């Protein structure tokens, strides 16, 4: 089972089972040094395991990076990825 943050990429590479975690890439299990959150994300992702009914399904348990539902992290991530491209 794949546990990943890039739903568009996962839909192209079609793993047998996948759980989508709506976090910034590189922070699948939460921000640094938050062991409670790491464990909570992993446990919640594993809860999806018996719910898959077909191959190549991507399940979305509804993870959110920010507790208030803000997606401001997307602008920060975009800037980070563009800086990476500049080298």
């Amino acid at each position, binding site marked *: *089972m*794949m*546990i*990943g*943050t*890039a*739903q*568009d*990429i*996962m839909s*192209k*590479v*079609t*793993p*047998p*089972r996948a759980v*989508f975690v*709506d976090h*910034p*890439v*590189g*922070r*699948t*299990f*939460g*921000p*640094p*040094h938050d*062991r409670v959150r*790491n*464990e909570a*994300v*992993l*446990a919640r992702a*594993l809860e999806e*395991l*018996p719910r*898959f009914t077909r*191959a*190549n399904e991507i399940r979305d348990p509804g993870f959110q990076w920010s507790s208030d539902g803000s997606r401001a992290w*997307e602008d920060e*991530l*975009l800037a*980070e*990825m*563009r*800086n*990476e*491209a500049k*080298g």
Partner: protein
Amino acid sequence: MPFQYLPVMAQNSAPKPPRVLVSPSKPAWCPINRPLSESRVALLTSAALRLAHQEPFIPREDFSYRRVPADPGAGEIVIDHHSGIGRVPKQDPEIVFPRTALANLQKRGIVGSLPPFHFSFMGGLRDHGKIENELATSIANDLKQSQVNLALLVPY
């Protein structure tokens, strides 16, 4: 709507074409025939991480893999992956390689058992045939020898 990575990756690689994404050439679906609480669970990561004393990965086309002890106390993890988004994961590899979280779930009885080792390799490799026929096959044999029932792949 989820963040769209593919358009950003295409822009970043321009004027070169974006990386080709492929699906496995053979179906990989296996039925789940035992509960998680009776399953041996291994982590797979494409972060090219390792213990500090293990041989470094060579960017960018390194088809080797490392066995990383499943015991969280076995030593500090180093990430060799060349990606620029590695600044944050390098502060705490557990956010992409939840070794401690998985060990805790096993102690709580949610996961049945752990193998001696998890597995780490380089992501972003471009020779898909070599990935499928050599790297993946070697890791699969290692997983089988360790009697792993469920492999969790966390892409980097």
